[in-house]
């Protein structure tokens, strides 16, 4: 049952065994970890283990997916998930779960990503908790219908916009912030009154398994379920008809998800990636700037974050100063041998390690390393690495890095930098470090990205009043805070008319007099209406 062993592991969810193909290599370090054997034992002792032995090798396929969704639809149809009380009970359950099981969550994140405890705390645990708290606080307000004004054209009438749940939704999350990216959308789906199936990433198996157990323990399993697995299980799920699918991950798979959704006309939210640039001016407080760059790159899951700084653009003149400051800052944060620092996550698995090493070892790229470059395969660690002026067509500048390498591109002036950014696909986030007000204005006006942050990185996702989502290649739709509630709701227009105050103007038989009155009515032309009415009544 050691799923740290390379190849297939087995995990349990609600009576089904799934083959979770994991890329994890055999890691003697981890397999001797007591936590892992504890989790394994507890998984097999889970109450969801079926009594019948012949269930052992059943794989989650089309019929299981179909049965699952039918069950959830029945739950949804019963109306249970629509009630305010149910939603609150589930959100409170999530809150309780995070509070009581914080240690387990931190442990799972450490196993999957060697994520430092503090990073886990502020980037995943407390953000999930605040998301939950916010929903609990605002839910009544969010659920209230919104009255809207009606105009003379539909007089007399009253109207409102009612938020209703979509039904049964599917949330597919990613491996880099496996806890947060699973829970945050689920919180939104529940707040909006839906039944939800969560499919966590198999590349973070400890968290996936933990989520499966915790959600069953703390939440209403007649409406909230976890399906673990990899490509076959995800495909089986995607073949079903959902009322919404939310996917966090790569652009390549995002296309597959949208194409599958198109068959059933299922609306989607796609939180994808991109190369998030940071443009650095010379007019900055350099020390603070560098600290924030470090926080937005290496302290963010070792650069394995969709919104971490992918590359930097700065002027030829300023680059040496920036590199020096980065050197100093990295040493301050991670010590003299950063690769040995426990304060950085590791690379998630051998596949991604190899991918990153290949980016680094490309011939025209390797010589451009000005800092770092060390790698330790056994520990899946790559040191914070800075490169200067790699060729634009090198692989490292073509694909999203998602790792601890930071290329710096130099330009003559920063406006050129804006052009460089605009020549690439629109990123999920764009950052600018400067004190120059004019530059800030130009940046916001001329650069397009999902979100933007001036003089910091990543932080904008913690503001629940801001929508978090991409544009173009970086995604479709947005969530966080009320945007999550809206993303998983249908905004239904409801109009109330009375039987009084009708005019036959609208209906046949049509006469020129009717036409005049109609024109005046639609244009809200008071004089016109009066005149038309006068001639009307003269008949």
């Amino acid at each position, binding site marked *: 049952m050691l799923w740290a062993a390379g190849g297939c592991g087995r995990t349990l969810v609600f009576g089904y065994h799934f083959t979770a193909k994991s890329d994890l290599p055999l890691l003697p370090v981890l397999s001797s970890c007591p936590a892992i054997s504890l989790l394994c034992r507890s998984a097999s002792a889970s109450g969801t283990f079926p009594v019948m032995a012949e269930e052992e090798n059943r794989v989650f396929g089309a019929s299981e997916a179909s049965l699952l969704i039918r069950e959830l639809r029945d739950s949804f149809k019963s*109306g249970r998930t*629509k009630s305010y009380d149910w939603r609150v009970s589930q959100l409170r359950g999530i809150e309780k779960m995070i509070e009581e099981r914080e240690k387990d969550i931190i442990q799972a994140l450490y196993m999957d990503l060697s994520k*430092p405890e*503090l990073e886990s*705390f*502020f980037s995943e645990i*407390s953000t999930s908790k605040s998301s939950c708290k916010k929903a609990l606080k605002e839910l009544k307000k969010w659920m209230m219908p919104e009255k809207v*004004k*009606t*105009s003379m054209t*539909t007089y007399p*009438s009253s*109207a409102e*916009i009612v938020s209703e749940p979509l039904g049964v939704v599917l949330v597919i999350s990613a491996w880099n912030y496996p806890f947060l990216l699973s829970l945050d959308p689920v919180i939104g789906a529940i707040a909006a009154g839906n039944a939800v199936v969560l499919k966590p990433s198999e590349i973070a198996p400890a968290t996936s398994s933990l989520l499966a157990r915790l959600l069953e323990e703390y939440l209403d399993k007649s409406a909230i379920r976890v399906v673990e697995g990899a490509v076959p299980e995800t495909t089986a799920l995607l073949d079903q008809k959902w009322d919404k699918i939310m996917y966090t991950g790569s652009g390549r798979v995002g296309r597959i998800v*949208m*194409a599958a*959704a*198109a068959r059933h*006309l299922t609306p989607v939210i*796609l939180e994808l990636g991109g190369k998030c640039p940071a443009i650095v001016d010379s007019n*900055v407080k350099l020390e603070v700037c560098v*600290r924030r760059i470090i*926080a937005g790159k290496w*302290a963010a899951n070792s650069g394995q974050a969709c919104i971490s700084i992918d590359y930097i653009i700065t002027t030829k003149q300023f680059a040496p100063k920036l590199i020096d400051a980065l050197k100093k800052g990295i040493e301050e944060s*991670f*010590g003299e041998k950063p690769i040995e620092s426990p304060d*950085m996550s590791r690379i998630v698995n051998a596949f991604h390690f190899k991918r990153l090493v290949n980016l680094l070892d490309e011939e025209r790229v390797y010589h451009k390393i000005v800092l770092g470059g060390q790698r330790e395969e056994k520990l899946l660690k790559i040191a914070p690495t800075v490169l200067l002026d790699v060729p634009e067509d090198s692989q490292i500048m073509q694909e999203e890095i998602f790792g601890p390498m930071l290329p710096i591109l130099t330009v003559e002036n920063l406006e050129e930098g804006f052009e460089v950014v605009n020549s690439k696909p629109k990123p999920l986030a764009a950052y600018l470090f400067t004190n120059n007000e004019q530059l800030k204005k130009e940046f*916001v*006006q001329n650069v*397009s990205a999902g979100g*933007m*942050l001036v*003089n*910091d990185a990543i*932080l*904008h996702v*913690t*503001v629940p*009043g*801001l929508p978090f989502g991409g544009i*173009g*290649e970086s*995604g479709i739709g947005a969530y966080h805070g009320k945007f999550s509630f809206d993303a998983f709701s*249908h905004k239904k*227009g*409801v*109009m*109330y*008319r009375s*039987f009084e105050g*009708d005019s036959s103007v609208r*209906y*046949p*038989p*049509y006469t020129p007099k009717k*036409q005049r009155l*109609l*024109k005046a009515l*639609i*244009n809200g032309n008071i004089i016109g209406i009066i005149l038309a009415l006068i001639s009307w009544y003269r008949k």
Partner: protein
Amino acid sequence: MEAIDDLDLQLGMLREYYYSGKTRDASWRRSQLKGILSLLKEREDELFRALHQDLGKHPVEAYRDEIGCLIKSVNYALDCLSQWMSGRKAKLPRAALLTSAEIIPEPLGLVLIISSWNFPFGLSLEPLIGALAAGNVAVLKPSESAPASSSLLANLIPVYLDNKAVNVVEGGPDVGQQLLHKKWDKIFFTGSTKIGRAVMAAASENLTPVTLELGGKCPAVIDSLTRSLDREVAVQRVLGTKFSPCAGQACIAIDYVLVEEKFSPTLVELMKGMMKKMFGENPKESGSIARIVNKRHLQRLKSLLDDPLVKASIVHGGSMDEDSLYIEPTILLDPPTKAAIMVDEIFGPLLPIITLNKIEDSINFINSRPKPLAIYGFTNNESLKTRMISQTSSGSLTFNDAVIQYAADTLPFGGIGESGMGKYHGKFSFDTFSHQKAVLRRSFLIDFWFRFPPWNDYKLQLFRAMYGFNYLLLLLITLGLKRSK
């Protein structure tokens, strides 16, 4: 058929114009909206003529449903444009210091609008109003099934709008296909559910967001009304909004009626009377009924009535004149619910009435079918209204009237499930063609020094205090008055 090279060149030029930044200007956007207004006002007669040619629409119908509605929408957009463009400030959490957060709308870029034949001007220009107000450049592909209207749009748009920003591409399904496989920043499609699926599938190749305005069977639930005034108004509205807009060929026209068995004889009598009043003894000569758009659709509608059980259920109308593409407004009483006329979207002047035991049964009836674009309820019963709102799902829900919600600028117009995704009208049009960009600004001055590695327990404690908004604790820890664990 468009040559591929020309199309790429055309789209390249549109994009270049977009990148020049011209369309971001508020004054440019206003000029475009005013251009649409001028087009509608100055060329009204030509618009009426085209609609009459394509669909046999009476000018009053054309004005009520398309021209007038568009004028209203443009004026609304002009009034609200500054407000829409200005974005809004977002609330910051208490833990953030010296930051500002706002949501700034920006145009998406190059958008594709594909419209349908039943309201060729309305369904082309209404989305275009939103696209231009939001600062985009656009390609409009009107339906080839309304050729006079399509051609008129192709001629008029370059005259009244900036033809470097708005292009009309005419053609049939193959032109549509070619367009769909290009890279767009948004695709806005009005049409059938079947094509809607193909549009979304094509859009997925480039991760293009879509708004799909599709169809469905919009039911009208008619309660047993007691007041004769209510009955008369209800029947007038049901029949007027079924047969008058494009002879029932409208996505939000009432598709079928649900009524309690006891009330149905009364209803049918009232309807027969009202039909005479609205359309006269000879509806064909009244000029108040639009034509069926083409032979293919006429055959489709004809075949719905071919089923002998369906034919037997006709209580009014039923005659056709294939040569003039005319179908008499027809009312049916209890055709079999499994017949095609009760399964497919009718999109024509046939109105089935289905009787139920109790009017409350209508809720289950509606819920057992795909979610429609609109549901209508004619009732004074407040509890029935409440039940309909909370227990049924549809794009929109209107009480005691039908179709009129289309004219409300403050209500989102769009479908759910099979009837579509996304919404527009009013500000929703502007939003559907915008990207809501989150912008956060910080200064260098203040920072939480404990945000950065190296990590230790002390920093963890500080974070706990900060996230709990426990400032007192934060202060105590910083001052060293509380021991770190």
